[in-house]
């Protein structure tokens, strides 16, 4: 064991009695070695989880994570923290249910308090057709071992009496509940995986931007970085938001566009919403953080962008959705808003796959659903890196599904990233 030791209630008491002199940094700050067996590009949630499971689950060593900024400074620190496995399609649901199961044991597994809170998620429906669609979705979830519960109007009213049930155009008729869904303290996910990986000997190298990927005879040999060349037998790319930029180093064009997704937090309020609610008649979802702020968001801005800030039309659209669903939200003041860059793939589903270059692997295309996927994404990517075979829940997340017409298109929109 390196570094910070085991965290526990007993440890807190012991440190309190001894002047808190025993705490150590949660991870080391090592100099890069000349070469590694595995290099993971991207020190976000997915990259850190990959390194953690490579070391812990697949018993690999000589692993480094390269991060251009600081650990957890990208989308894992910019999302709205929701976890759920309420997908419809066969290619998705087993993967997300695997992820939810990993969330349920995560804190014990990596010995870090990530505040995993299974406070439930409720997708509202407003028409008979929507109810039927949610019935089908709920049944698909149950068939894959997830939990789902179709609620009627009175059951929803008992949970959230303040919602706008009698909106003339979009009356609330009920909802599809997944009670095991919820929220997680997002930064702690990055920190927990980072610390767990570091304790197992993974080198976490920050301020180290990859500027090139070297290959020889169709095989990867290492990466050029802002801190010099680092050799590697295998390189895994997990940089969602910037996937096209990194893969351009090897001349690969991806089925991905980058788009801005905005999120919003209100001023702190007394306890009001104890779960996650999504509106079925507009793109709006909301939960309440433990600090009291309402955390909400909606659609992507709709055009290719790398700017981590959004535009006014979506701010208005989200505000309109909120006012339509729960008019009392108009009394709350908006504290802040921000934007993150999403890998929007052509079918709205992710990619975890090998590339045409031996030893180069890709993980990306998470659209706006990457956070909930973090544990399973890391596990499945580690599985692929260690064994060269896709994990059983990620067999559909291949590059060639576009060419073969095997899209995993939950919304049935076709190959148009801004519509997913």
């Amino acid at each position: 064991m390196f570094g910070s030791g085991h965290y526990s209630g007993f440890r807190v008491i012991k440190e309190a009695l001894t002047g808190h002199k025993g705490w150590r940094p949660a991870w080391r700050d090592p100099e890069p070695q000349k070469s590694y067996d595995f290099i993971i590009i991207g020190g976000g949630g997915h990259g850190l989880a990959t390194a953690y499971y490579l070391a812990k689950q697949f018993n690999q060593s000589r692993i480094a994570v390269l991060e251009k900024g600081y650990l957890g400074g990208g989308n894992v620190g910019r999302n709205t923290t929701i976890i759920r496995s309420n997908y419809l399609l066969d290619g998705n649901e087993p993967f997300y249910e695997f992820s939810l199961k990993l969330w349920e044991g995560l804190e014990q597994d990596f010995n870090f308090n990530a505040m995993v809170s299974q406070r439930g998620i409720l997708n509202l429906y407003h028409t008979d057709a929507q109810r039927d669609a949610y019935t089908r979705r709920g049944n698909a979830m149950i068939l894959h071992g997830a939990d789902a519960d179709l609620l009627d109007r009175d059951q929803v009213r008992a949970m959230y009496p303040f919602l706008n049930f009698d909106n003339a155009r979009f009356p609330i008729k009920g909802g599809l509940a997944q009670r095991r869904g919820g929220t997680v303290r997002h930064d702690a996910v990055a920190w927990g995986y980072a610390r767990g990986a570091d304790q197992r000997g993974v080198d976490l190298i920050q301020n180290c931007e990859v500027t090139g990927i070297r290959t020889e005879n169709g095989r990867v040999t290492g990466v050029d970085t802002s801190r010099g060349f680092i050799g590697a037998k295998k390189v895994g790319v997990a940089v969602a938001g910037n996937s096209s930029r990194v893969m351009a180093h090897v001349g690969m064009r991806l089925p991905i566009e980058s788009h801005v997704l905005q999120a919003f937090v209100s001023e702190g309020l007394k306890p009001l919403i104890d779960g996650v609610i999504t509106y079925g008649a507009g793109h709006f979802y909301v939960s309440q953080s433990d600090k009291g702020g309402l955390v909400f968001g909606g659609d992507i801005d709709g055009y290719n962008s790398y700017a981590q800030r959004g535009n006014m039309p979506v701010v208005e659209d989200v505000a309109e959705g909120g006012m339509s669903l729960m008019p009392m939200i108009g009394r709350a003041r908006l504290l802040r808003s921000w934007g993150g860059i999403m890998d929007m793939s052509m079918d709205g589903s992710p990619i975890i796959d090998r590339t045409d270059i031996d030893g180069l692997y890709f993980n990306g295309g998470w659209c706006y659903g990457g956070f909930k996927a973090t544990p399973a994404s890391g596990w499945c990517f580690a599985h692929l890196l260690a064994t060269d075979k896709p994990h059983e829940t990620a067999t559909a997340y291949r590059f060639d599904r576009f060419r073969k017409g095997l899209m995993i298109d939950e919304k049935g929109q076709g190959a148009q990233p801004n519509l997913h």
Partner: protein
Amino acid sequence: MRLTCPLCGPRDRREFHYLGAEEYLRRPAAEAASAAWDDYLHNRDNPAGETRDLWYHEAGCGQWLLVTRDTVSHDIRKVELVATLKGGAK
């Protein structure tokens, strides 16, 4: 964000519908290999920096526009009518 439509002048972003990258204009021949169609339909350069993409002036003149802009700064550099481009869709 505003786009300056060559026909209508500066207009709010809400009037426009975004389609995607310029390469939608370079459609392969019907008999082209499936790899060419796969690339055309699914793969994108997705640059951080200058890009050229297609916008439809839905709530205005109904013309397709080719917009040169920066994906990092959101600067709009040039807006052209697709109909007047050489080889452009009529």
